[in-house]
């Protein structure tokens, strides 16, 4: 009671801090401390990770990262995943969610079926996908062959590895996106559809003017989550290309780059600089997204 009443008093503030303390301690230890250490590491030209001793304070590590052609590939691929693959995945999920919600029978069955990828291991599915993408034996090329399209060496050609990765990434995200969107679709009160029918709206119009606006908070949620996730893609690269990162490093993502620099090469300060760049990028994009989405999203 005193806290509520004395919100502005010194006593109230102290009490509030006391209540927050355990949470703050945990957050500091597990989030802020590593974060600060990463920032610190990135600011040295050379750094002994095991002793936390660095020499040459400055932006040298950032310069190295920003000049590294592998990092350029990683950034390009990551942006492709977030700006092309992720939206495509949401659009496909949306279509699937709308189809599932429009069928009457076996809805639950389809729902389960589409959720399966979510509970299967990325690595295990990766092995299957490696076969699907295989240039001689893969099903994907078999189907392309049916349409007289030449087989594509998806995983061998540095120009196509990113598409293979994107396809795999899209597939991996369908389950989660579809389920969330399906719940969103099912939560739209039926009366709006009845009203729209009475108002003479055709189905296309109903989808664009009723369903999508009603789903906009869900879509924005998925976009934000998807953006952050797509900036952190690593497992998919590993599953498809092993720890080599694709022909001529063509399937690098930013996190894969960080991982390889950290554990592979053992150059932690460089990895930290890349991680800081990633952190700032995600932060900026999230802030922009939030500002933009306020304009377009309908929250109830």
């Amino acid at each position: 009671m005193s806290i509520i009443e004395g919100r502005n008093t010194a006593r109230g503030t102290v009490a509030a801090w006391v209540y927050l303390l355990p949470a703050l301690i945990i957050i500091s230890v597990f989030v802020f401390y590593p974060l600060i250490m990463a920032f610190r590491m990135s600011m040295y030209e050379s750094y002994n990770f095991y002793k936390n001793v660095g020499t040459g304070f400055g932006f040298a590590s950032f310069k190295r990262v920003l000049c590294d052609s592998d990092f350029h590939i990683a950034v390009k691929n990551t942006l492709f995943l977030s700006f092309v693959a992720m939206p495509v995945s949401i659009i496909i999920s949306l279509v699937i969610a709308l189809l599932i919600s429009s069928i009457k029978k076996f809805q639950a069955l389809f729902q389960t079926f589409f959720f399966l990828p979510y509970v299967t291991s990325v690595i295990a599915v990766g092995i299957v996908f490696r076969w699907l993408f295989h240039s001689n034996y893969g099903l994907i090329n078999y189907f392309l062959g049916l349409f007289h399209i030449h087989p594509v060496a998806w995983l061998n050609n540095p120009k196509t590895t990113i598409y293979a990765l994107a396809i795999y990434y899209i597939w991996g995200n369908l389950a989660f996106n579809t389920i969330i969107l399906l719940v969103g679709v099912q939560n739209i009160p039926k009366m709006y559809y009845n009203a729209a029918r009475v108002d003479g709206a055709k189905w296309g119009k109903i989808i664009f003017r009723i369903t999508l606006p009603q789903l906009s908070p869900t879509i924005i949620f998925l976009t934000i989550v998807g953006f952050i996730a797509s900036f952190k893609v690593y497992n998919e690269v590993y599953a498809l290309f092993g720890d080599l990162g694709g022909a001529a490093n063509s399937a690098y993502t930013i996190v894969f780059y960080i991982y390889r620099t950290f554990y592979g090469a053992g150059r932690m300060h460089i990895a930290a600089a890349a991680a800081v760049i990633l952190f700032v990028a995600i932060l900026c994009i999230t802030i922009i997204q939030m500002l933009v989405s306020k304009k377009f999203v309908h929250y109830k």
Partner: protein
Amino acid sequence: MEIRLENIQKKFSSVVAVHDMNIRIKDGSLTGLLGPSGCGKSTTLFMIAGLYAPTAGNIFFGDEAVTLLPPEKRGIGLVFQNYALYPHMTVLKNILFPLENMKIPKKEALKMAEEMADIVQIRDLLDRKPSQLSGGQQQRVAIARALVKKARVLLLDEPLSNLDARLRLETREEIRRIQKETGITTIYVTHDQEEAMSITDDIVLMDKGWIQQQDSPQQMYLNPGNQFTAEFLGNPPVNIIDGKITDSVLVVCGEKLCGFDGVEDQPVVVGIRPEAVLIGNGDIKASVRLIEIVGKDKIISLDLKGCLIRAIVSLDYDCNVEELLSFSVKHSGVFLFDKTTGARIKGFAS
């Protein structure tokens, strides 16, 4: 536009929501579709709207069979139980939506929408979102949206159920006004008998998917066709007591109430309107069990040898509990019903 329902039936898998329904709704009338919750009112309305396809039967608008027409081809406007205003669109966009679908040019549509907004008096709310409106305002927007496309028929599904008591009174007058102003054939669904009685020209009373009676409000009240109708209409409700006819006299709890000519000797269910109990006027004696004041009325419960009978008196009538009063009943306010079917048994005063 006259509306006719012929042998309309609606089944939901195993549930029969509406049984063999035949009604005629007069052109330009405001007809109430009345009944307790779950009796099939919304279902009937949605069949008229074209949102539900009837399992059997036909629907006519004038001479035109509309049974198979989709909602947008029927020329109806529908106001939903919760209004169903599109929450992401402004009031204006909500009203424009049906016009947009009819491909009416923007300018003209805007003019129509503004005219409609004037009729329902929401001109100054056009830029707001539904969530920024009061219940009554939302309701008017819903009516505007329903009527803007020049609907031939206006269907209202419990339009007042979300409003507070006071607003309900105001708004139903408003609906009445708009309906008279536009002259549109209107079906008004409600479970509130008072609401139906006060604004409709005609009432269709339903129970468990069956039509009970169709009549003007006054006729239905004064001349109920069965026990359900008598009980559903009127507040305070009709007194229902077991009785019997012996030698053309109605006997209740061993007390002779009044004469009924033309009715055979039989046990009956007796309905007595509270206002038909005339206190201080007659020779039947009963003691006062309970005195309640409901609004501007005073209701006295009389104990007639174990049977309770409620009577309405004016507020200034003075009496005490346990006091012995004498009364008589007005014959026009006493109805006899068949013990098993509940059908009305008519007789004459003697």
